[in-house]
């Protein structure tokens, strides 16, 4: 048996992916299928006086047109709060909100049908400033009001101050997940009155629950199967085209392929929340933190999505992984007429990390300490009390991480190297290489922690079923069934590794993820290796137990062995061995008597909700990371080249070293994007850059090699001691790069992403526009 836990096992879907034969959701086609498309409101806020679909319905080739009037069940949906209309009926609240959908014989006819739908809009003044969302003269933008959630964490004596005070405002722009495969589904009405969906999603069972409610169908008639998913990063946690496509398929009585192009993808799913943040840190003159105050305003956009949970993360992590005796952390997430925001890798933590790490650097300056030394001095340790009153469980090697990353060798100076700087190694690259004499280098650090799994009392369990039988060729084979959505992260490899280790088999097959089994929860929150890995392991252990009990019974072993067979017998490398009983047989012989199957539901430890003072035990566990960034800045054009990135991360037990490496490198690149490239820009509520031409993503030329060190202390209560690894590095990459730019140019840079226009005219000591307004302290 090879390819078990701890090996760099290959992905089972890899060969099809490199051959181009792996079927993504957008690749699915069936004979006779129709093409679905969505009509979206062009106004950020408008009253809808009338929607006339008569002309569109009469076009040749149009099979169905649906609007709000055609939703048979609940008119709204949502991950946490069902406040988003399936189609806007009387009022549209963001530019891009769906108003109608059509299904036609081909995509071009569907587009023409959309153009033939007449909507009489009365544009209303949009409210797009989150700082004004709760002002008395701002109208309620939705019957549920403009406040999604407010959290106020009070810890120690919030009025206590140290003698050194650092206080400032910070702004973070809107980032998009920009997964590479746009949204797509193939949806088929079934003869039993139900509907079958093959869809790219992060959470099959949440989709099913929302679909069933809106379609007014019992859940068992709404069947979902995961289609190939081309990336997610939080952007597929919400419903997008699922309900629209199901309504069309049921109205037309035919299969419907519904798929977005890139522009519609940018408009169709929620983004990372833009943030306005005010922080006030106080410390002793020696550099020990005394207090942290934070006030956060997150722009949730027009509908709730996962805003309430994102805010909880932002507020509870706002002081960072530091020992803070006194804190007052306050946040609101509000409704505006901007695009809805929701889950993206890091889930509220990247924003506050940008703020608290900038504050730490400025505090280090103020007390005359090195930024690394200040972080080492204040880093949280297991046993310390967090601002929520939660006791930090272990392990959390925050101090070790920042020390490790600071000790990594630095890259050579910009003008060193055998050939000197070239167009390939200077800011601007080949098209706009900097004048080497006008390049300035900076080094920056960031440390963060991020919660793992769902928080605040959620029991986000995961189910798996495992069957052990003989394949047609007589070799033992394990089959795994889980609804865990593989979105690229590599669960498919991890699940197979676990089955090989626990059952001693080489051959493992993974059944398609679908709703024929119970929920695996969402592929988010760094949770699937822990939760669904735990479910697969639990099911394997139960299968092994049942098989060993059967073997013991058949062999006539004593009742005590039959009752607890694992104590005397074990499965190892295709054999069942019991030294005490003098028993040895092959797994294949043991399975000749028939297959063995078991289902297991994995739960994590219980957490609690936050009380009115923001106190509780909200998070299951944490993982920490520390990045060091080195940048070169072109002082003339304001262009930044990230020269090197080093990362030390708290990874728990490593199940697959190669997959770990891929996760931390990818997480680092997305953080780099937020630092210097990626921003979905809105103007009066309208997204102005919803294309890859205008929304810039890091390329191979932008992302340096990652110097990575894993710290692998096992996490208690987690299967094998794992921790989720995908999110923590996204939280630290951005502030480390911003810190490095700050060190290079000597400007505060309180707005992220840092744009070229923020880095020119450096003789002027004031930040250019974009210097934040933020939320004034109460």
């Amino acid at each position, binding site marked *: 048996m090879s390819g078990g836990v701890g090996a*760099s096992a*290959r*992905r089972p*879907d*890899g*060969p099809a*992916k*490199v*051959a*181009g*034969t*792996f*079927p*993504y959701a*957008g*690749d699915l086609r069936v004979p006779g299928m129709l093409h679905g498309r969505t009509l979206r409101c062009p106004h950020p806020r408008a009253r809808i006086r009338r929607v006339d679909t008569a002309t569109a319905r009469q076009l040749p*080739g149009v099979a169905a047109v649906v609007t709000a009037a055609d939703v048979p069940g609940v008119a709204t949906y949502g991950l946490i709060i069902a406040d988003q209309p399936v189609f806007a009926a009387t009022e549209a609240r963001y530019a891009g909100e769906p108003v109608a959908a059509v299904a036609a014989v*081909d*995509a*071009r*006819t569907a587009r*023409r049908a959309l153009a033939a739908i007449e909507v009489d809009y009365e544009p209303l003044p949009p409210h797009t400033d989150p700082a004004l969302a709760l002002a008395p003269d701002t109208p309620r933008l939705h019957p549920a009001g403009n406040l999604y959630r407010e959290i106020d964490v009070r810890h120690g004596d919030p009025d206590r101050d140290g003698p050194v005070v650092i206080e400032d405002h910070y702004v973070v722009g809107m980032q998009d997940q*920009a*997964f*590479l*495969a*746009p949204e797509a589904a193939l949806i088929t009405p079934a003869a039993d009155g139900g509907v079958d969906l093959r869809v790219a999603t992060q959470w099959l069972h949440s989709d099913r629950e929302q679909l069933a409610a809106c379609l007014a169908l019992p859940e068992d008639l709404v069947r979902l199967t995961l289609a190939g*998913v*081309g*990336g*997610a*990063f939080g952007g597929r946690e919400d419903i997008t085209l699922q309900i629209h496509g199901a309504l069309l398929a049921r109205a037309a009585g035919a299969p419907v392929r519904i798929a977005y*192009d*890139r522009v519609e993808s940018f408009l169709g799913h929620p983004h990372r929340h833009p943030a306005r943040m005010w922080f006030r840190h106080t410390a002793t003159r020696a550099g020990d933190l005394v207090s942290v105050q934070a006030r956060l305003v997150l722009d949730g956009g027009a509908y709730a999505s996962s805003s309430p949970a994102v805010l909880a993360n932002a507020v509870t992590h706002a002081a960072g992984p530091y020992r803070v005796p006194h804190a007052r952390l306050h946040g609101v997430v509000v409704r505006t007429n901007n695009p809805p925001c929701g889950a993206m890798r890091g889930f509220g933590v990247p924003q506050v990390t940008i703020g608290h790490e900038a504050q730490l650097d400025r505090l280090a300056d103020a007390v005359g300490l090195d930024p690394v030394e200040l972080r080492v001095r204040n880093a949280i340790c297991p046993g310390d009390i967090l601002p929520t009153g939660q006791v930090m469980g272990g392990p959390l090697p925050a101090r070790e991480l920042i020390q490790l990353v600071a000790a990594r060798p630095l890259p050579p100076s910009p003008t060193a190297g055998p050939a000197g700087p*070239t167009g*390939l190694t200077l800011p601007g*690259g080949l098209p706009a290489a900097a004048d080497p004499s006008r390049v300035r280098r900076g080094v920056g650090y960031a440390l963060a922690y991020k919660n793992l799994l769902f928080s605040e009392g959620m029991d986000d369990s995961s189910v798996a079923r495992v069957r052990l039988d003989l394949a047609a060729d007589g070799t033992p084979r394990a089959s795994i069934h889980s609804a865990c959505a593989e979105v*690229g*992260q590599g669960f498919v490899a991890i699940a197979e590794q676990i089955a090989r280790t626990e059952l001693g088999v080489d051959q493992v097959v993974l059944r398609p993820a679908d709703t024929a089994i119970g929920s695996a929860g969402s592929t988010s929150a760094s949770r699937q290796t822990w939760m669904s890995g735990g479910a697969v392991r639990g099911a394997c252990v139960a299968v092994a137990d049942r098989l060993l009990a059967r073997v013991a019974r058949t062999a006539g072993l004593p009742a005590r062995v039959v009752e607890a067979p694992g104590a005397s017998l074990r499965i190892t490398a295709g054999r069942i061995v019991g030294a005490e009983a003098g028993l040895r047989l092959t797994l294949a012989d043991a399975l000749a008597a028939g297959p063995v199957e078991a289902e297991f539901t994995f739960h994590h430890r219980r957490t609690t909700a936050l009380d009115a003072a923001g106190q509780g035990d909200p998070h299951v566990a944490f993982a920490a990371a520390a990045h060091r960034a080195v940048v070169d800045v072109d002082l003339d054009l304001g262009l930044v080249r990230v020269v090197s990135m080093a990362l030390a991360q708290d990874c728990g037990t490593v199940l697959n070293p*190669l*997959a770990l*490496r*891929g996760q931390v*490198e*990818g*997480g*680092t*690149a*997305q953080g780099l994007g937020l630092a210097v490239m990626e921003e979905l820009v809105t103007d009066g509520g309208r997204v102005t850059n919803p*294309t*890859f*031409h205008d929304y810039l*993503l*890091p*390329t*191979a*030329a932008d*992302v340096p*090699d*990652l110097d990575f060190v894993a710290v692998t202390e096992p996490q208690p209560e987690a299967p094998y001691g794992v921790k989720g690894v995908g999110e923590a590095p996204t939280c630290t990459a951005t502030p480390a790069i911003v810190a490095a730019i700050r060190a290079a140019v000597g400007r505060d840079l309180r707005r992220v992403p840092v744009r070229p226009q923020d880095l020119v005219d450096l003789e002027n000591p004031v930040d250019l526009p974009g210097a934040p307004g933020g939320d004034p302290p109460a």
Partner: protein
Amino acid sequence: MSGGETYRLHVDGFPRTVSGAWIGDSLLTVLRDALGVTAVKDACEQGRCGACSVLLDGRLAASCTVLAADADGARVVTVAGLGTVGLARAVRATFLAEGAVQCGFCTPGFVVAVTDLLTRRPDADADELREALAGNICRCTGYGRIIAAVQAVQRDRAVQRDRDAR
């Protein structure tokens, strides 16, 4: 609505005829929707991401920015037509071995672009590799394992060349 255009293409070695196409259809649209060649991926339709990379008469192209009308009579090679031997096979194998594949949606385009690059510039250094592959976006890997895979192919082929020279 379909148009009346007919295009003749050689796709992955086979003659294919597209009829009833629209004059404005891109090569990508014709490949995916008319011919069912889904190994070519559609991610941005602006020539920015490289997911739809093909070789067009031997030259690397983003098929979303080529009019099918302009490709009439051309040889189109997708990831599926690169062959199962030689360089393309080595690129695929090292992408798997080095962990260069996660969601995999960029992978077909990358395999085409990397095979093309290593054909033209077998000894490109890391900076050149990164610049040359900047037309292909990967959102999952951060490129580290992709560059590692390309360099592994370069090393294997250098060893092979040395062996052949002896």
